[in-house]
């Protein structure tokens, strides 16, 4: 494998292969109730406590569309720069399984609610556009639990009927890295919109990964395999690497690739055949006669457009222009909506004489490190944006040094204390009175006569010794710049 010029290629003897990837992302719609029933959707509830007669498919029960979920899907479509279809149709996808009470999943087959769109990825070597084929609404199935009993399978229908958005990309992705950035971008957009929490641990975001390979430079697609239901970015990347190499090996051996559905075994780090094309389910899609075609007006869409917040791409542009940030810095700050919110609040609280660069460095440095070590999200930060802003200002106006600030910050992390108070209570204020520092330095020089002479004779390294002594004598509070200036004069 080589990554020359960031191009992800698989090398074999004389041949180089390009990997072509398309994703079908299943994103759970952020909604209090299900797509066609009023049951709750809370994660982690006791099994079968969020199930209505509709979700359990009792005789004579009928689906009624949840308007909120429709709005969420349209908003997401707008966030993906996609065409919103004013008329879409719900179809039944028929198959039998114990956790599919109706015997069919209500989905959208021929006429999805959202059509073609695009997403921009920021890659190290520049921007890349990934096409969106469509987004459609569908019901989630329940959950079969096979490992609670040696004989029986248990079924939890809490998830049955929960609204999902299936976001289908065009086969535009070319590497595991791009998949990583693509998933993160989708998640970021949806979190900005509040349409999906993007929580992969809870299964709110998972994907079917389509992988094929072709000789570098070829315009034709190879035969693809679909890896079903992968629930973390890391696993997606591992599955792609494995699958692409498997396909290349087959080609190199002169064998053909069968179009099939495969599973990714996370323990063995390999993909395995699940079913071949011949065994593929015939889902017998047809329009659900219990539901009328979904029609939305131009006005309805326009009102939702007015409701769309500033999205990551626009925010990034504004951060670069307004705060003179680098593209790299802006990216870090906008990729997560909560980080961008925190940053903007810090900026607001810093007032007029603010040092934005300093704030950015502290957020991406000290704050991120502290949160990381505590395993917290920025939204759970023990240091409020307001106190964070005060801390940055204290550094900026010379009240404390950067070094002292680190001590103060550590105290802040243990409880959201006002840094001003910490500085006062612990007497950490920076010593910036030249006379006091002069007195201090005079004392040090007189008690280290020999070293002072050595320095004057040319042992310049000893300068650092004197700075250290001065700092130590001041309890670390002396303004380092002043120490430098005065020492140079006196020595």
């Amino acid at each position, binding site marked *: 494998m080589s990554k020359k010029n960031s191009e992800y290629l698989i090398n074999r003897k004389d041949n180089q292969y390009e990997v072509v990837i398309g994703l079908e992302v299943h994103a759970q719609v952020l909604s209090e109730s299900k797509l066609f029933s009023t049951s709750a959707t809370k994660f982690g509830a006791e099994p079968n406590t969020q199930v209505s007669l509709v979700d359990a498919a009792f005789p004579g029960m009928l689906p009624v569309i949840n308007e909120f979920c429709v709005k969420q899907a349209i908003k997401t479509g707008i966030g993906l720069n996609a065409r919103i279809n004013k008329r879409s149709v719900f179809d039944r996808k028929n198959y*039998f399984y114990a956790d599919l009470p109706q015997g069919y999943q209500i989905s959208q087959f021929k006429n999805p609610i959202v059509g073609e769109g695009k997403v921009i990825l920021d890659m190290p070597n520049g921007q890349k556009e990934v096409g969106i084929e469509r987004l459609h609404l569908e019901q989630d199935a329940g959950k079969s639990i096979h490992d609670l009993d040696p004989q029986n399978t248990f079924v939890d229908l809490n998830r049955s009927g929960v609204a999902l958005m299936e976001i289908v990309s065009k086969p535009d992705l070319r590497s595991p890295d791009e998949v990583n950035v693509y998933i993160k971008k989708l998640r970021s957009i949806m979190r900005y919109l509040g349409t999906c929490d993007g929580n992969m641990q809870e299964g709110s975001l998972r994907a079917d990964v389509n992988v094929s390979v072709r000789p570098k430079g070829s315009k034709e697609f190879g035969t693809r395999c679909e890896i079903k239901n992968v629930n973390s970015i890391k696993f997606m990347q591992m599955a792609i690497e494995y699958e692409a190499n498997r396909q290349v090996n087959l080609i190199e051996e002169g064998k053909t690739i069968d179009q099939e559905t495969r599973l990714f075994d996370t323990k063995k780090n390999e993909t395995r055949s699940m079913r071949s094309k011949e065994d593929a389910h015939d889902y017998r899609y047809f329009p659900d006669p219990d*539901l009328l075609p979904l029609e939305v007006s131009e006005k309805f869409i326009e009102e939702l457009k007015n409701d769309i917040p500033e999205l990551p791409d626009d925010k990034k542009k504004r951060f670069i222009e307004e705060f003179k940030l680098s593209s790299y810095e802006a990216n870090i700050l906008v990729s997560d909506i909560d980080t961008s919110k925190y940053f903007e609040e810090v900026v607001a609280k810093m007032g007029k004489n603010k040092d934005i660069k300093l704030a950015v460095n502290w957020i991406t440095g000290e704050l991120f490190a502290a949160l990381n070590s505590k395993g917290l999200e920025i939204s759970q930060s023990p240091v409020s944006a307001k106190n964070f802003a005060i801390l940055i200002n204290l550094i900026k106006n010379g009240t404390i040094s950067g070094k002292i600030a680190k001590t103060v910050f550590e105290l802040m992390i243990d409880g959201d204390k006002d840094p001003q108070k910490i500085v006062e209570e612990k007497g950490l204020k920076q010593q910036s009175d030249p006379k006091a520092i002069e007195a201090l330095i005079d004392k040090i020089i007189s008690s280290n006569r020999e070293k002072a002479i050595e320095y004057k004779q040319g042992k310049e390294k000893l300068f650092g010794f004197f700075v250290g002594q001065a700092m130590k004598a001041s309890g670390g509070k002396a303004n380092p710049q002043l120490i430098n200036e005065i020492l140079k004069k006196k020595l």
Partner: protein
Amino acid sequence: MSDITKQSLTELVENVKNKKLSSTDVTKAFIDRSEKSEELNAYITNNFTSALDKAKKFDQKPNLDLKLPGIPMAVKDLFCTKNIKTTAGSKILNNFVPTYESTVTENIWNEGAILLGKLNCDEFAMGSSNETSFFGNVQSPIDKNLVPGGSSGGSASAVAGQLTPVTIGTDTGGSIRQPASFTGIVGLKPTYGSCSRYGIVAFASSLDQAGPMAQNVKDCALLHEVISSYDPKDSTSIDFKRNHYSKELTNNIKGKKIGIPKEYRVDGMPKEIEDLWKKGIQYIKDCGAETVDISLPNTSYALPAYYIVAPAEASSNLARYDGVKYGFRAKGKNLIDMYEKTRSEGFGAEVQRRIMIGTYVLSSGYYDAYYLKAQKVRKLIKNDFDEAYKKVDAILTPSTPSSAFKIGEKTNDPVSMYLNDIFTVPVNLAGLPGISIPAGHDSKGYPLGLQIIGKAFDEQNILNIAYAMEEKINFKNKITDWWIK
């Protein structure tokens, strides 16, 4: 009063309101007759004890402002009734007790009626003779070993046999009108979207409609007024202005134009049916209305289209009966084995046949040739009616191509059985209202019905036409009580 069960719904309501009869009197009388009528096999489940309790309770504090004050009523066993077994005539729901009530029956109880029991029907309403029921075939009160029609066969038998004053059935391709025609009663299939489908065991969702079955047109109008309502729980329910159908009922149909579609003169139609239709035309004229020859050119495609669309939807609607959550479950070695055994043992032959047809026509590679084409035909049939209604106010046809047949006569010939629906099916495909009224007898003395098809939401108009014709026809059902010893 010994003749309580002979009274029409309208008379019973009046007598209860005038306190000439109590709910207990009425309920007792119908329970008594129902108990003597076991041979008809009209009931799957009786609710007699509870019904009598409710009647007594009603009498203690009667609310006489209700439309059906203390009136007992049995309903087709396709309507889910809270805490009362609901089987859809199938083994697979043999032990199913809903915790909920269908909107249509809820509407009925809200107007003061009392549930007498659940009436037999073809399994999942699939059949035209009530012979596919897991609970056995239903006898017709007209003659021994005669089918009452289907799928609402138990309902038709119960009304004609005076086991219930009125009832409700469901009609997917003729399941109200054909049995009404076979048993000499009135049956209305409302416009699609008029009555909520919530809580009705689904057969074919885009065709199913609940509707009233009664001794006469006025009773039919009253019951329709009670059951028809807009229901947000059914996404295909339509919010239109509903009439007070019984109050606005009139026999004045002067000047109305009634279409006579030439395509309904099918090959091999018995002369008796042809003659009945002619008589019907004369009655129309006698009422001061005029008949107009019209054409519904795509009629002959209706039956094949119906037998694609209905099984397709049914194959999907019935997937939920898998032994996992409720109803009958057979033991199996694994999940697939359990599915196969449950569905093979739980569904009868006709239901399995339709599931297979439906699964086939929806399969990839066949979808376009069958399902999609059938949907196109459906549109053409609807267009035919739209065209016709530019010229006429309603359409008159026979209800069925023959009178009732003997039990067992057609069970081995599904196609001949399906042909029973030839005049009723186009109405379901077009989503229109249609009413069957008894209009005469054949040479064997069996009832024959005429069908009046209306414009969408124009139930009042066809009820009025039926009302006016009923007066002229003056039909007398020949019920000999042959089954009562």
